[in-house]
């Protein structure tokens, strides 16, 4: 990201992101933290190419979304990006299996290949027992694992996660985060995660802090997660964000 700025025009002009610079390496697991209204979601929307920057350049894997047509962008998202959302956004009318296979059907892959990938993924994510269930019949953790499966099934280059643990209890959160770490390490998938939760952030390789749309600080992980977590908390207190934004849990 190079000098990226996003201005929302309207009755009140609002500068959501201001000259933001950062770089994510291939295979890196990065968390973006910041208080409410700091522009985290806007940032994610820009990277996921569903919104375009007012000025500045975003380059993903050597490609620039600005130069692509709408259609190319859609295909780019379909093949290169995977999404994980806070409220899962599974399609209620589809079963777990169908939710997983959804991105592949759009590309018209052969049935055999789709079935093979589902078997692989279900094993990896522990979804074998619930493939026939519907999203409202499974727990939050299972739903988020399904969503991650959906984001992984087309083997994207980058996974964009928006508060993936926001709606989960602590046990399910830990499962999901460990899963993300595993995916990151085994498949070398780049993961960019936006989060409020310092515990979630402490699983990452690097945490970028933004405030009011501007770069604030960044810290790298170290050997022990506990100390990394403590350092994240320190930066957060410096950030002076709203107290409510911080997790009430002090230690995992």
């Amino acid at each position, binding site marked *: 990201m190079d000098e990226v700025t996003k201005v929302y025009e309207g009755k009140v002009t609002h500068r959501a992101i201001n000259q933001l610079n950062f770089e994510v390496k291939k295979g890196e697991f990065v968390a973006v933290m910041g208080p409410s209204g700091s522009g985290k979601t806007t940032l994610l929307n820009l990277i996921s190419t569903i919104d375009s920057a007012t000025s500045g350049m975003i380059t993903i894997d050597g490609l620039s979304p600005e130069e692509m047509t709408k259609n190319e962008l*859609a295909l780019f998202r*379909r*093949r290169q990006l995977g*999404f994980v959302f806070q409220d899962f956004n599974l399609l*209620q*009318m589809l079963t777990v299996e169908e939710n997983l296979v959804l991105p592949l059907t*759009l590309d*018209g892959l052969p*049935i055999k290949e789709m079935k093979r990938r589902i078997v692989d993924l279900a094993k990896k994510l522990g979804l074998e027992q619930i493939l026939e269930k519907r999203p409202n019949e499974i727990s939050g953790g299972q739903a988020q694992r399904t969503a991650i499966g959906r984001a992984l099934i087309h083997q994207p280059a980058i996974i964009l996660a928006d508060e993936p643990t926001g709606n989960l209890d602590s046990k399910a959160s830990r499962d999901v985060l460990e899963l993300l770490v595993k995916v990151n390490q085994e498949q070398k998938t780049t993961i960019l995660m936006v989060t409020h939760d310092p515990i979630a952030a402490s699983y990452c390789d690097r945490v970028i802090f933004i405030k009011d749309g501007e770069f604030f600080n960044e810290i790298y992980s170290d050997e022990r997660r506990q100390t990394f977590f403590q350092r994240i908390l320190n930066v957060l207190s410096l950030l002076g964000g709203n107290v409510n934004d911080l997790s009430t849990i002090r230690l995992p």
Partner: protein
Amino acid sequence: MSAFLQARSKEFGLLLQLGMEKKQLNKLIFLETMLIGAVSIATGILFGYAFSKFFFMIIRELLQLDSLPLYISWKPFTLTMCAFFSLFVIIAMTSVVFIRDQKIIELIRGNWKTDEMQSFSTVKAVLGIVMLLFAYAAAAFTTMNVVKALSIILPPVAALGTYFFFTHSVMFILHQMRKRKSLYWHRYRLIAVSEVSVKLRENARMYFIVTIVSTFAFLSVGTLTSLSSYTGQFRELNPLSLIYSSELTNPYESEHISLIRKELEEQGISYTLVPFVIKQQTSSYSQYKVNILRESDINSLAIALGLPLISLEAGVGMFIPYSEESIKSLANREIQTVLEESNIPVQIKGVYPQMLFPSMVIGSNIIVVSDADYELISEPLEGRTAMTSSFNFYAFHVAAWERTKSIGLSIDTQVTNSIYNEDYTNLPFYFENPGFNYSIIRATFSLLLFTGLMVAAVLLLAAGSFVYFKLYTGLERDKRQFDVLKRMGLTDRELIKIVNRQLLPQFFLPWGIAMLHSAFSFLSLQVIWSNLAEVSILSDMILVLVGFTFIQVVYYFLIRWRYIAHVRA
């Protein structure tokens, strides 16, 4: 009503959360409904009155009245207001009931119904299809003997079948499809099919109602057009414009004929008069009375009507058809008979290829013989005198036959009076004015048709609007879903394709079933009609069904356009 309130359930929930009493909420809803009612009644009356002149003009045209001026009276206004106000009061009262027992949290969440996968019963699914097929088969192969019984049995069977079809059979079919992955896991089908199955399941009852309502609309218009297709064929069945037949003893004959001629001339209507004498004899072949016409009379009539001429040799005769159907049945008939009283042998073969006289005006046994043979008939019908065994027939041909409705009204009055005095059978003449009859039939039928069309239009619009409303209430959810899909890389073109596949069944499934229902009902109707009057209603039916299809397609595109605009926004 519950659908309308459900759309606003969040708002009600919020009001209750802020501490509104249930009583106050009820008052609010009641007041709102009444307010909406008052405004809509006022605008309705305003627009209604503005367009009433237009309707008056249509009705004037239909009834062929000279003028139908606009008038103002307080009665229609009061009636409209009272009727609709009482309707709104009932709606307002009942709507309060719907939200009475809801928990606030459920109102805020907006999901009144549990979102569980409603299971279908295979038995009912199959039963639904079987009932429909049975109803269709029975309607298609009905005969006059059973049509009455069927018309009582079939509608409930078809209605119940339709209900099961929408609540169970559709689910069953979609479930079967979802089991076949090679069919189902295919590009847009995965989303479209699953979405359709949700929508159809959620709204199964509504689609059932829409189907029944549409069927009624199709049927009412179809029946009425079949009536007016009868009037359309009226001219073919009544090729002569004015008919006066008179016994030789009729004292009014010359008076009436000159009256008709005078009236025609006064109104400036050009006409051709073909008078002839019809003789009666007994046929040795059937022992029945036959009416005999002369070849040259038929030919002068044919010239006037622009029909083919005939030429007969001596001793040869030809049938004159007494009904449309008889043309076919008499075409290959050939009989040898003797006109008994005068002892003239005649070989009757073939039939005149067109209707000349309205059916049954002269009787069912009519033949035409050569002039020479005709002259030979001299003996009166057995048991009658020369004066009563033949009669004069005056056939008027008027090109502008619809304008003859005011001709010979005084003769008609005389006929009516004699019917009133119960000596109709003693009347020495017979007068028929098809133009006048036509104007009555046309006015009645087209008035009925007009009302039917209005009712059908309202019903169809209501059905379509309901589909649209349902789409609109589910819009938020659909929008969220498409947002997710767009993020996942759904192109615009794919989105439109999915929307198409989603909307098509919602629009055309109820409509298609309604079409089928009415098509098969018309098959039964044709049976009834062909017994009443020989009229084919097929072409008119097709026209009506095509017309409705067109309206539905337009409606589909209109709503698809709005829906896509909303979903994309």
